[in-house]
């Protein structure tokens, strides 16, 4: 009997050590020469060296004098660090007594956010400054926030900045993230296609007009060209609908509430388009992907709604289409509804682990909130800046040598100024990552790909969401 017990115990030990064996094996595999592409995000969190050794970080640059205060900064878009580098040079010129040297590291989106979460949890390994994408931001607001409060540094620029953009990166009145842009959603129209099939995009005011135009395109092209592509992996269309009806899929208390009329209307309309052959499902799930860019480049679809920051994608991925695309306000369900919504965003935070948190905060608010900074944000990144004075500064808006203004058929600022007071805000709280997950992984796929019932899907997802903490 004793022996039996002992052998049982040994078996448990053996199994437990299997955990070890398997874990180690994977590591060993990945360190094979020539295959150093890291993968174990689960194991190397917060390990600063991981990036270098695994070739994960796509770019590491150091900017600023050696004598300056040394800082680390993580971003998930390389272009962002270029912008910060330019602002850093300007800062060092203007502040000879407060020189800074920053090492910028660009990680893939998921890796960077996971690394920062783990560093916060562990209390060590976080960079001084870090970009956080808005949909990930709520994850960092749980528990005791590990970032420096920025209010006193923001005060200097507060009057010029759209208040809603500061609010989305705050908790209990304390602001933790410096915003980059408004992210006003607009409709991008391929004028070449539309003209070919006799559609004037400026006359499209409502979704009914839009559907009529879609029919013209489908008929004229014998179903070869579609008016748009609907997303199975993104919620932009739903945000537009919610903003138009003034609804929000989280309540004021932060509870999920996704069975909304606006969402149902949008999904029903989109499903109708699919059934009638007026639209396709976005290859890969949404437009902001290699497959999506290829779809646009092939002239498969004539329009799609996206936030203003998508302009830079046109320049990077579709330079040959210059002079074909126009920007206009989104259609609405009923005339008089607001025609835009702010989507996306990046809040830059200062870690409490930083030895020079105050200096870092002073620099980052200068870089992202000052007038010079906002001009640079427009010039380098092509974003609709949080300082709306830029939108009506003729020196900037009529500068035709600017690459973004030169690319589009009409002036992006005309569209922006038209919707300036109609840009809706959808709250982003703790439950939002879970809501996006429900839509992007389950609901939209089932509705558009598998023909599931819309009301039924929303109801089931709502039940699942109510199990989450919020």
């Amino acid at each position, binding site marked *: 009997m004793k022996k039996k017990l002992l052998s049982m115990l040994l078996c448990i030990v053996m199994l437990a*050590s299997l955990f070890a064996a398997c874990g180690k094996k994977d590591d060993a595999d990945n360190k094979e020469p020539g*295959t150093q592409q890291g993968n174990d995000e689960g194991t190397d969190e917060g390990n600063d060296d991981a990036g270098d050794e695994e070739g994960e970080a796509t770019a590491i640059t150091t900017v600023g004098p050696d004598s300056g205060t040394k800082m680390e900064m993580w971003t998930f878009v390389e272009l962002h660090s270029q912008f910060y580098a330019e602002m850093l040079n300007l800062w060092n010129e203007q502040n000879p007594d407060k020189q800074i040297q920053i090492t910028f590291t660009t990680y893939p989106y998921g890796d960077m956010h996971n690394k920062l979460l*783990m560093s916060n949890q562990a209390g060590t390994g976080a960079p001084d400054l870090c970009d956080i994408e808005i949909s990930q931001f709520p994850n960092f607001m749980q528990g005791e926030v590990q970032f420096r409060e920025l209010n006193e540094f923001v005060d200097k620029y507060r009057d010029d900045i759209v208040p809603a953009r500061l609010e989305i990166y705050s908790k209990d009145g304390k602001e933790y993230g410096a915003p980059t842009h408004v992210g006003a959603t607009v409709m991008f129209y391929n004028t070449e296609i539309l003209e070919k099939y006799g559609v004037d995009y400026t006359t499209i005011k409502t979704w009914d007009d839009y559907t009529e135009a879609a029919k013209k395109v489908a008929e004229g092209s014998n179903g070869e060209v579609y008016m748009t592509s609907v997303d199975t992996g993104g919620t932009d269309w739903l945000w537009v609908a919610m903003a138009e009806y003034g609804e929000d899929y989280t309540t004021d208390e932060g509870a999920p509430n996704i069975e909304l009329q606006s969402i149902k209307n949008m999904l029903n309309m989109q499903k109708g388009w699919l059934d009638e052959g007026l639209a396709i499902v976005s290859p890969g799930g949404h437009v902001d992907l290699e497959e999506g860019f290829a779809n646009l480049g092939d002239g498969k679809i004539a329009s799609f709604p996206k936030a203003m920051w998508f302009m830079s994608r046109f320049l990077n991925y579709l330079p040959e289409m210059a002079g074909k695309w126009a920007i206009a306000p989104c259609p609405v369900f009923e005339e008089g509804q607001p025609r835009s919504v702010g989507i996306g965003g990046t809040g830059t935070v200062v870690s409490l682990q930083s030895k020079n948190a105050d200096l870092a905060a002073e620099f980052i608010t200068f870089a992202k909130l000052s007038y010079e900074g906002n001009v640079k944000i427009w010039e380098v990144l092509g974003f609709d800046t949080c300082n709306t004075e830029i939108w009506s500064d003729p020196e900037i808006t009529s500068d035709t040598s600017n690459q973004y203004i030169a690319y589009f058929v009409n002036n992006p600022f005309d569209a922006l100024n038209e919707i300036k007071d109609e840009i809706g805000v959808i709250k982003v709280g703790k439950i939002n990552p879970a809501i996006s997950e429900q839509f992007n992984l389950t609901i939209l796929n089932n509705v558009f790909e598998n023909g599931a019932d819309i009301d039924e899907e929303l109801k089931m997802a709502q039940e699942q969401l109510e199990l989450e903490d919020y």
Partner: protein
Amino acid sequence: MKSLKKVLYSQKAAPYVFVLPFLLSFMFFWIYPLFSTVKMSFQSILPGQVEWIGLENYQKLLKDRVFHLAIKNSFTYMFWTLVLLIPFPMIYACIMDGKLVKAKGLFKALLYLPALTSVVVAGTMFRLMFAEMETSQMNQIVQWLGFGPIKWLKGKYTGMFALLLVACWRWTGVNMLYYLSGLKNIDNSLYESAEIDGASGFKKFLYIQLPLLKPTTIYVLTISIYAGLAMFLESFMLWNGNASPNNIGLTIVGYLYRRGIEKNQLGYASAVGLVLLAIALFINIIQLIWNGTFKKEER
């Protein structure tokens, strides 16, 4: 000094001294984390705010449909890997061990090669092969066979097929090697006496190789059950992240990663991990009792 010498030279103490390094690392790296995980599964863990919440995490697990789906996926995957990765490698090994096969070393090396490839690289290659475009390799093949292009990684069954193909490609050679080494242990005189009695090749397989390979089979079965349940990386690479449409590629460990790393709910993730441990232990202990591993050696 003398007493120390006495301890070191003592026949009773020496074995413990020798296993001490293992025991220490085992305690430090495995026993401690195990208990710490148990503790964390009863807590809500956030930076600067660790609270005891009793059984709340487990109660949530009971109602969490996505978790149930993850368990189902892991089980389906495990089941099919057992079906595909035990009999076939065994047969291949027996064929390879026979006299008919030439250039054995070459075949062994070739079949083992996939196991040396990083899953990351392999997963990326398979993802491209299974892409939904008409031009992807798998769609070219099915079109050549007269079927339409398939959205491989969007469907439940095709997605599982892709996962299993990666598993077979990767592990067949490894399991075959286990069986080959098992076959090496079989005494040649058994074959000789069987031949004298006029046994055919199939009879030899059935009455000599199959029973004598039982210890190897039990070992392969035990690790395959665990490996099947703990699969994560293949799915992660095939869907380029932890998010597959309708969660068709979500495994238990994938869910643990999503909760613990991506959503910063380490307490909840610990509970997920413990459920995985419990399931793996349960199945394997049943399996081992059933196979008679715990019975007294009969000699």
